[in-house]
């Protein structure tokens, strides 16, 4: 028994030794394998949610995302709606959005990029205000607070 323990211990050590030696040369492929695991994707609270619609205008594209209410065990009562403007965007951005696709506009947002001012007109009572309005590397992004 004592001998078996020693052999098991030394085998475990040598396995670990090999693991450390191959770790760095194989890091990219190990990481790639890990990234393919089912849970290795960012939560919509961080990505902004799936893309629901794209409105393409002359030099700029408005990406409307699906509303995000993700919680731990169930959906939350409060969430957000993210809008992204890509490309060459004008100094003043104005958009009327129907995020729940019921045919009625839910809010209207006006962004003055020069003065970093965002004005929200909450048409629907579920709209709770501007959470984030910021310039990004691709243009501009806005998160509007929502309740269910």
């Amino acid at each position, binding site marked *: 028994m*004592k001998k078996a*323990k*020693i*052999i*098991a*211990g*030394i085998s*475990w*050590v040598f*396995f*670990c*030794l090999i*693991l*450390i*030696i191959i*770790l*760095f*040369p194989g*890091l*990219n492929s*190990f*990481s*790639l394998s*890990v*990234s393919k695991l*089912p*849970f*290795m*994707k*960012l*939560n*919509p*609270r*961080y*990505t*902004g949610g799936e893309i629901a619609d794209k409105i393409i205008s002359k030099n700029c594209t408005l990406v409307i995302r699906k509303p995000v209410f*993700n*919680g*731990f*065990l169930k959906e939350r009562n409060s969430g957000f709606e*993210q809008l992204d403007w890509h490309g060459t965007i004008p100094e003043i951005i104005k958009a009327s959005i129907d995020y729940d696709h019921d045919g009625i506009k839910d809010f209207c947002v006006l962004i003055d990029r020069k003065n970093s001012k965002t004005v929200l007109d909450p048409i629907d009572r579920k709209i709770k205000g501007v959470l*984030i309005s*910021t*310039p*990004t*590397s*691709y243009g501009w*992004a806005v*998160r509007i607070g929502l309740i269910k």
Partner: protein
Amino acid sequence: MDNVLKTTEMRKSFGKSLLYTLPMFLITFMFITGGKPNFSDPSSGLAMIMVFLLVNVLYFFMHFKGKTDKYRAVLFIIFALSLSYTLIHNMIEVRKSMSFSQADILECRIPFCHLVIPMMILPAVFTKSIIFPGSIISGFANISSMVVLWLVATIVLGRGFCSWGCFYGGWDDGFSRIRKRPVIKKIGELWKWMPFAVLLMVVLTAALSMMPTYCSWICPFKAVTEFEQVTSVESATKAGIFLSLFGGLVVVLPVMTRKRTQCSFLCPLGAINSLSNKITPFTVKIDKGSCNECFKCVYVCPLYALTSEDIKAGKVSLFCSKCGKCVDACSKKAIHYGIRGIPAGTMKNFSRNLFLFVSFLFMAVFSAGSIINTLHGLLKLIF
């Protein structure tokens, strides 16, 4: 006389030490230079050579002098400083400030660090997603590669990760070495369990709020890496917490106690790593037959991992980070690196050689990139 003999037990002759360093020399050469040293940029080439020499000289001395902690700490502290330098330098160059903006969060550009891992677990299980605004696979410090690095290091080293791999640990390790004698000598036993309480709280709060709460509210190392832009009462409170915890647990208390207080009383990842100490092949063992119960090891242990009761019982607690301080302090060599399954007091040299190779290789390769970056930056400043 007996003490001198025992101390020199781990020492090797110059030639033998060189021989033991040879595999490290070759492997670090391959990993650091990629097999083809590039000298097109002289300062970068020089930084690479300096780092390559530094790690190998330190490893050589570990064998030649028979001491571990002193040489480990040199690289460990340099690693912590250089990583902070690299991050801050990068932040200031790219964003002109140490704080990250809302755009960085929205575009998921925040570098991932291993401290987020405990908070990822429950949401990953229940929502099949990661609650961190970083990149899954591409870019610097992406989530997948950091998870792989931590996972392997934890399986192999257990809590040894905290003394051989963590790029933050060097901060309080460094500050804990400033004073010769501690001002505060005793801290209640209860506090040793604090990292587990922090772990419990951050795991729960992160899952329920779907936000990495430790990073958002507690992490003291935000003070030396990057933090949220101060734009509100909440972000100002957060910045205040980061700075006070850094000042208290990473600077003041380590200086006063000569212990790594942030690692001992706060770090939730340290708590998980402590549990993985149960499976790692490398351990620290106590040979009760040789021990004269002087308790020097208890006095020097930086993580409160040893108590006089533990020594009398001949076991090391799960808090041990295998830093080697107790091993170096023991004049009888009764406390030593060991391998699971091998009885205490036997195969001491074999166990130490294997442990040093594995742990030092991990630290050397993991740290090389950021140390080279830092040196490169400093050389560019000088010349």
